[in-house]
Each structure stands twice: as C-alpha cells, then as structure tokens.
C-alpha cells in the first residue's frame, strides 16, 4: 500500500502545504503540456524526485501499475479515434462503428494521453508516500474539521481493516477442513469483516467522544518558520508552473495529433525539457536540515 512513511528527505522535510503545492504545480504542467518529449521529461523528473525522496523503489512499482493502465488507453484510442489521416491498418467495415481504419495519429495521441496518465499516477504515488496526510488534513481541518478528520480516520483505518480481513481469513484457514468455500461462505466471511469493522468503529467513536471531537473548535494555525526546503520547493513549484505556461503559450512544446502529427523538435523544446528536469530535481540536492 502506498502509505506515507517518514524519511530523511528534503520533500519529507518540507511543510505539507508547500509540498502539496509543488505536486499540484507538476500536475498542472502535465495537464498543460502535450508534447511527448515534455511529458517524458516530467516522468524522468518525477522518478528522479522519487529517488531523492527515498521512495524510488515504490515509484518504480507505481510505474508498472501505470503501464497496466496506459496500455488499454492506447488500444482504445487507436480503435475508437477516426481523426487521423495516416492509416497503418484497415479492419474493414465495422457496421455501426463505421470503417475500422487504425491511424498513426490516433496511436500517438493515445500514447500521449497514456503518458499524461502515467505522470499523474506517479505524482499521486509520490505525494501519498512523501507528504504527511495528517499535516495536510490539518490544513483542511481549518476549513471543515469533521470532514477532514473523517478523511484522516479513513486513511488510518485502511491498513487496520486490511489486517482484520487477513486475520479473519487466517482464522477460517485454521478450521478443520480449511476455510469453507462457496459464495455463501464468502458472504459469511464478508459479514464477519463488516461486523468486526462496526465494532471497531464503535470503539473509535467512543475514543473520539472522550477526546472532545463533538465540540471541537477550528484547528489553530501553526506558526512554523519557513525552512530552506519550504522555500526551495515553493520556488520549484513556481518555476515549473512558469515553464509549463511558457511551453504552452510560446509554442515551445506545441503538439497536434490530428489530422496529421505535428511535434516539432527544436532547441527551445530541448531547453524547456532540460529546465523542467532541473527545477524539479534541484530542491532534492540540498540535504541540509534533513532529519535522519
């Protein structure tokens, strides 16, 4: 499970609000840019960032998951899109779906969308691994205490419920003759898991009651001095956003798929990609003040 784990890294040492802004800036860049090279640069930069945050192995696993999601996107787009002009395979008349002409443009556009999805999956994984959800939800608690606390509880309870289900499955395996099979038996196990989680919910509710959850006021604002990492990631977020806007508005990373592919490779694009990788990875180079 991709759960937050404290690590000695600049991203972990950054306040949650800034780290979330940085992740949002990268998300915006992924949504603004369409050129495959720019998106590839983002994938590379995020993988480097994951390495810098000490979660490189987990991001590699997330990349595999992203590949599983990306492949159907490419396949569906190439089968569904009818806008390209360069046909590389003809499937003939598909009745109500029209002519089954597969085009290079649809294939490439599908790959670009898949690349975008990959960037978003990697970013989500990096954020959930490296940004403290408690600190993040604490910010949300200033807006809506109960909703944020409910979200905190859900995050906290996920591994517990998974452990409950595992325990119950183990208990059933120790019955003479092994775990009972069949749909009815599975429903009974599911019922027991639900009953157990309701029992647990009652205990948690009692704990929250005595901690004063019912009358809790708005969470106070925490006064915390800005660290070098807060400033570095804030600057990085601003730079990423600026580069993405520049690439989009100045046409440095222009890309059109239909009707014919247009993805010019120029010095400007290469510089943009290098700059993106640099500004994303740079904050990870300064490891001063990182707790070990």
């Amino acid at each position, binding site marked *: 499970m991709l759960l937050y784990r404290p690590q000695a890294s600049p991203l972990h040492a950054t306040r949650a609000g800034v780290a979330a802004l940085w992740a949002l800036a990268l998300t915006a860049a992924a949504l603004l840019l369409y050129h495959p090279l720019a998106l590839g640069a983002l994938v590379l930069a995020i993988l480097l960032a994951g390495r810098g945050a000490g979660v490189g192995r987990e991001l590699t696993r997330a990349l595999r998951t992203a590949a599983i999601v990306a492949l159907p996107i490419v396949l569906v787009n190439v089968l569904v899109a009818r806008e390209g002009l360069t046909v590389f395979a003809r499937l003939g008349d598909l009745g109500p779906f029209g002519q089954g002409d597969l085009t290079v443009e649809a294939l490439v556009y599908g790959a670009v969308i898949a690349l975008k999805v990959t960037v978003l999956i990697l970013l989500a994984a990096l954020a959930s691994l490296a940004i403290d959800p408690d600190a993040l939800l604490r910010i949300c608690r200033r807006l809506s205490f109960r909703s944020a606390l409910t979200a905190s509880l859900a995050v906290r309870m996920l591994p517990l419920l998974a452990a409950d289900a595992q325990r119950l499955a*183990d208990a059933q395996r*120790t019955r003479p003759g092994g775990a009972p099979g069949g749909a009815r038996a599975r429903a009974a196990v599911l019922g027991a898991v639900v009953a157990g989680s309701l029992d647990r919910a009652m205990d948690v*509710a009692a704990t929250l*009651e*005595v901690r004063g959850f019912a009358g809790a006021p708005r969470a106070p604002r925490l006064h915390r001095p800005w660290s070098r990492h807060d400033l570095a990631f804030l600057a990085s977020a601003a730079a990423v956003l600026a580069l993405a806007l520049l690439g989009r508005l100045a046409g440095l990373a222009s890309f059109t798929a239909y009707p014919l592919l247009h993805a010019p490779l120029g010095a400007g694009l290469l510089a943009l990609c290098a700059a993106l990788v640099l500004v994303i990875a740079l904050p990870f180079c300064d490891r001063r003040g990182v707790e070990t």
Partner: protein
Amino acid sequence: MSAPILSIKNLTYHYPGAQRPALEDVTLAIDPGELCLLAGMSGHGKSTLLRAAAGLVPHFHGGRFAGRVTLAGLDTREHGPGRLGALAGSVFQDPETQLVMGSVRAELALALETRGHSSAAVARGVEEVALALGIDHLLERPTHQLSGGEQQRVALAAALAGRPPLLLLDEPTSQLDPVAGDELIGLLRRLNQEWDTTIVLAEHRLERCLVCADRVIALCDGRVAHDGEPRAFLEWAAAEAPALQTPGAKMLALAGLRPAPVGVKQARATLRRHGLLPADPHTPADPLTPADPPTPAQDPSLQATAARPSRRSRRTKVPPALRLRGVWHELHRGPAILRGVELRVEPGESLALMGRNGAGKSTLLRHAAGLLEPTRGRIERAGRIALLLQNPGDYFLHDRLDREASPRALADAGLAAMAERNPRDLSGGERQRLALAIVTDTQQEQPAVLALDEPTRGMDRLAKAQLAAELRGRAERGQAVIVATHDPEFACACATRAVLLADGRVIADGPASELLAGGWYFATETARILGGAAGALTPGQGAELLADRAAALRAPPEATPAPRAPVEAAR
C-alpha cells in the same frame, strides 16, 4: 478535606435491551490524588463503571440510568463525554482503536486541538507529554508501525495531553508483555506520585498493580462488594472471592500465614518473620530450599509441573508431535522474524511459549499450523495442528452457536445450553471455549497438536483456571499443547515445559518449574516470593512447601538431622 473528584451515588444502569443491570446501586467517592484499583470478574461492571465516570454511559451507550455521577462537580447527565473528557482522560483495552491519526505527533496534537488550545500550547503540550511518558523518540513515527506497548503509551499520552486531573484506565496491560506491562504500571505510579493525577485502574492481574494502589474497589454482579485498602481487600477476597486473590496472597493464606501480603516485598517479610526465609536477603543458604531446586521425586508437589518426557522416551521411536528444524522466517526486504528455530514437541507435552511482543511467538505458531511457509528450514508434523488465534471473535461467522460447531463439540465445551445464542453475546471465557470447540471440532482424528496464541487476553482468573484445566486434560489424553502467553501464572498452571523466545531465537528451553522461577519478568509471583530456588510453583504447591518447612522448623531437634561434625564432614 477536599471534595471528591469522582462521586457516584446510587447508580443503577441497564444497557439498552438488557434485563439485568450492569451496575446496581453503586455508591462511592474517589478523592483527588488516589490510585484506585477496580477489581472483579469479567462482566461484573468494571468497564461500565469507568464508562459512567467518563460520561459515555449514558450519553454514548444509551440505556436506563438512575442515580447521580459527578466528575469534579459536573453532573454527567448534564455534561457529555466531550466536556467531561477535559477532566478525565480515558484509556481503553485495545490500543489500536484509540489511535485515530497517522502519526504520533498528530495524535497527541489532536487531543489538544479539540480542546481549543492555541498553536503554541499544542506544540508545548505535545513535547511535554511525550517527554514525560518517554515517547519523544516516537513522535514522527506512523501509528500503524507502533508495537502494542508503544500504542498503549501513545494512547495514554493522548489521554494525558490536556493534563486531566483524573485518569480512567480499562485493563491497559491486557495486551502487553510482562516487561511493557510493568513499565506501564510504573509510569502510572509516577504520574500519580509526581503529577498527583488521580487514577482509576481496572485490572485482572492484580499482583501487577496492587502494590501501588491506595485502595481497591471490588465489583460483584454490578454492585460494590468491597471498598478498602489493598490488604483489607486481600483479606476480604480470601474469605469471599478467592478468584480475586493474588497468587502470593493465596499461597500465604493456604499456608496459614498472615497478614495477606500486598506484593512480593511484604510476602517475603512475612516469611522471614516466620523463619521461612533468611533475614539477610544475600544469605546463600535459604532454609526454605536446599542448594539445588527440589526434584519431583524429592517434592511430590512439583510432579505436576515437571512432567517433561524423559530422555529415554525421546530415544524411543515415538515420532514427535511437532518438530521444527532450523526454521527461518525472513521478510521480503525486511528483518528475520524467526532465526533458525529448533523445537521438538512430544505427544502429551504441554509447552508455554513466552517472550516479549514481537519476539516471534505468533509467527512460530503460524508456521507450526501451516499458515506460513518457512523461508528456510523444515517442519514435521505428526498430524493436524489446531491453531487458536488471538482473537476468538475471528472464528465466528454465524449468528448462532449451533451453526459454528457440531452439537458434540458444543457439549464438550459446556456450551450446549447456549446453542441458539449469538456467539458475539458470549463472555470472554465462553467465546474462547467456543473458538476452541470450532478448531478442534472434527469427526476424524483429534489434532496432534493444539496451539493457542495468547488465549488469556482479558480473561479473569476463574476463566484462566478453567482453560488451564482443559489444556492439562488434553495433554493427559496425549495431545501436545503449545500456548503462547505473556502470563507466567497461566504458563505455570498449564505447561510442563517453557520456551523463551527473543528476537526470533530460542534463548531458553526447560521445565516450566525452573524457567519460570529465575527471571525478573518471566517468573511467577510465588517464585519471586520464594526466591526462585524452589522453582515456579502454583499457590497450592507453594503453600504445601511452606507448610512442610514450617513443620520442619517446629519439629523437636532430635527429629531433624543433626549437623555433621567437622570431622565427619571432612571425611
């Protein structure tokens, strides 16, 4: 005289739909600074009383409530648990359900934020309570990575963060190993003495905390059966509720020695006064015991706990019920949980598996039962291994007992009369018996080994005694029994052999009577009282030994062997 911090007057309470009251006409007052122990069997009202003090009864649980409970002058009928929580911190039995945030720091901060403290006060309060409870090194740790003992400490810290004047604890040590349990009790004692925190503590293992209590309130069927100082409580328990006696008090009472001892120190002082222990604790020759521990042949009272199969029987061709040969369990990209464990369990042998939380006891049992496969090593089994996991509720899938186990199994477990009841309505001891009936319910051959993982969590002494008798009976019928437990008294009562695990390795393996006698933590109270040299004895065995020694001391000089003359000794 100061006003009581907690006052209960004529409290009678019924849970919703219940015919019998959980609490009946309870009247008591607890003064500031007291450390008060709540004693009683399971289901006799301890938890309900704590919940009434915290305001959860009736606000959270509903039901019928009569009488009056005031906490620092606030009537609990008029103020909810949220308001009362600022005055009374609560710690419940299961630490997992008391941690609601992802990190320890956030957990402690939440307790203060919900009370409306400023950010500076929150930051300061978190640091202070963490330092006071020695958990400052855990502040950045995720709560789901904490051990049971650490979780309980964090839950205690969260309850204490707002510095409430009263602390209510419901069996906080029931899931902890002896070391963590003693640490927690020591911590409570410090809080009481240094912070003047009033503490109300419900516990089954009274020997652990009686020595630091100012007062004991015993509940029986929801009524206050006794309210007095610890020594008076023990005198009362000896006459009225033997199941509530501590092992040490029971041993001395059976031996006819008074007064009832509150802890090991007082028991030893009593024995010394009667000449049954040397006056100087460093005197090597203890008149109670010979230089070497008595053998079962010398002392018939030891025969019950020293019946380990002889070497000769091991050399016979009878295959072991279970054999682990160099078993390793190594986590993928993680530590090794078991490290080359060698263990041989004979049919009819009863073995107690002991060690701290995380030592590898549960993992070893799971390997024995085939729930896990060793990463290295081999396991040989003479037949099926029936494993009873820690939480008996995990076995219950249906809403009636007779759908969980066969009529014969229910009858064997003494549950035939409850066949139509819902398993979740049973008491702790009954649930344990039902789960045991489920895992051993088979028409074919009985399991070769019965393995139980922490079967006494939250059980009272009577239920433990019944379970120990059941396990002894199974061992006598030839079944090997392995019990992973934190409770040395229970281990001594049900096992002939003990194995101590630490960091996934077997660090000690021997007769339970020897192994549970010499340690600081993994030793019975009777062994600690008797100095350990006589072995780990049940209170009855200890009393017999004391009676024999007292008789020997009373006997006329000619009846005892005369000291050998120096010349004779020299020869």
